[in-house]
């Protein structure tokens, strides 16, 4: 489904965010991506999303080499991937409902179906009572859940979640992770970058650990610490 072969990413100023990463993630897997701050987790996810290109090496998603992908095909790649961004990236002038609906409008969804699906997903993340608020009017946790709803709404085959529980208390975080697990059970490939030790430890899924951009551990049923 997703595979990195000898991927290195060097940002401007010579910052090496990823070093020679080779890893393979199969369809239907659930992967935790952990590591200290600045270790390259977000960079890892952005490569899959073709937001950035690797400096060396190649990234394959659903059989396609992203480096060879044409500019015009990128939107179609992205529609197969749900992304919960670490900084949410909600459209500032659309309210919660519209932000979530936008993801469906982009793929040309029928208006009636759109409404039903948006309402349903907002219910699932627990934001129905805030659907008319604009992002700046939301609390940190609510923003995070709105971003989550947008990623879930079109039921993509791949879900990338970057620190989806950083602004949530334990219970709310559990709720969000449950949604990801549920999607995973329906066959979605899920990758979650997180610092949340409790959740990683309690789920016992595959754990990939980055440190200074290098892959230092890849356990089938791992925990947060060795």
């Amino acid at each position, binding site marked *: 489904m997703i595979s990195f072969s000898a991927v290195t990413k060097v940002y401007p100023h010579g910052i090496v965010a990823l070093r020679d990463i080779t890893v393979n993630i199969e369809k239907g897997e659930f992967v935790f991506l952990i590591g200290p701050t600045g270790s390259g987790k977000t960079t890892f996810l952005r490569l899959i999303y073709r*937001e950035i290109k690797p400096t060396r090496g190649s990234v394959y998603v659903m059989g396609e080499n992203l480096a060879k992908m044409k500019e015009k095909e990128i*939107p*179609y790649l992205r529609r197969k991937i749900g992304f919960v961004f670490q900084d949410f990236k909600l459209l500032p*002038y659309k309210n919660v409902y519209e932000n979530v609906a936008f*993801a469906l*409008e*982009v793929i040309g969804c029928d208006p009636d179906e759109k409404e039903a699906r948006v309402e349903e997903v907002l219910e699932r993340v627990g934001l129905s009572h805030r659907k008319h608020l604009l992002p700046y009017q939301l609390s940190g946790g609510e923003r995070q859940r709105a971003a989550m709803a947008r990623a879930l709404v079109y039921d993509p085959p791949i879900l990338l979640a970057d620190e989806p529980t950083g602004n949530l208390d334990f219970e709310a975080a559990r709720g969000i992770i449950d949604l990801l697990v549920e999607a995973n059970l329906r066959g979605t490939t899920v990758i979650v970058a997180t610092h949340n030790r409790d959740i990683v430890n309690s789920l016992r899924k595959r754990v990939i650990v980055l440190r200074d951009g290098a892959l230092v551990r890849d356990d089938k049923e791992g925990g947060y610490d060795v």
Partner: protein
Amino acid sequence: MYKLKYFISEALKGLWRHRVMSLLSIITIFLVLFILGVFLMIGANVRFAVESLSESLEIRLVLKGNPTPQDVQRLYNSILSLNGVKEARFISRGEGLRNLAKELGREDLLGLLKTNPLPDVFEIRVKRASDVEAVVRSLKGWSETQEVIYGKEAAQKLLAIQRFLIYGGGILGSILLVSALLVIFNTVRLVVYARREEIEIMKLVGATHWFIRFPFIFEGVILGGVGGVLAFGALILSYGEAVKVLSSQFPFIPVILETAVLYKLCGAVLLLGLLIGFGGGLFAVQRLLGKVAME
């Protein structure tokens, strides 16, 4: 169909969300188009006025010998059939002498003279300054002609002034047009540029370029269109007022009253607004879309 509705509603929402900015740019577009329109109207009227001036150019055809009334009538018809001639008037030698006496202020001139020294004359007026030379050339070819007197210099000056107005006006008009285009274009681009973050996010969510572009194009068209309509209205109204004032205060200044011409001019201004709004919206987003995501 559904999509079109969606794009238009997005465009309207966008304009409303950034209403301060929308208002500022509509005002800017309106002003620029209005000024362009005022210039076009002044230009049209100046040309019209200069053409009217041509009518004051006079050609005097001095006749040989003593033509009979039949000769005069025949000549009169020939003159009127010449290309560019507007009107002709016959002045007999007797009438000419009376006029001269009056001009000199000596009614006794006729008594002082043994015989009338003046010839018979046709006074001819042309439609345009550029017709003078051709008419004079024809007249000179006739056997009845003794001499053709005309303001050669005046005709040439008038022609030169017309040419000057056409070229000068053309250059000035082009500068103004290009400026108007650029200013409106820049305004639409500023509006779009202020929303680069939104565009960035849309791209991230998987929107195609056209999906992002369309609402912006509609916004541009609406901005340009509203500015254009306002300019159209303001031009029609203020031209009416200006004509009213002019014709009461300066009745001798010739102005265009034909409304068809005016509506055509103002329509062009409106169309311009729409087109540049469209172009501005299209290219402004283009630039932002072209950029690779920030790394």
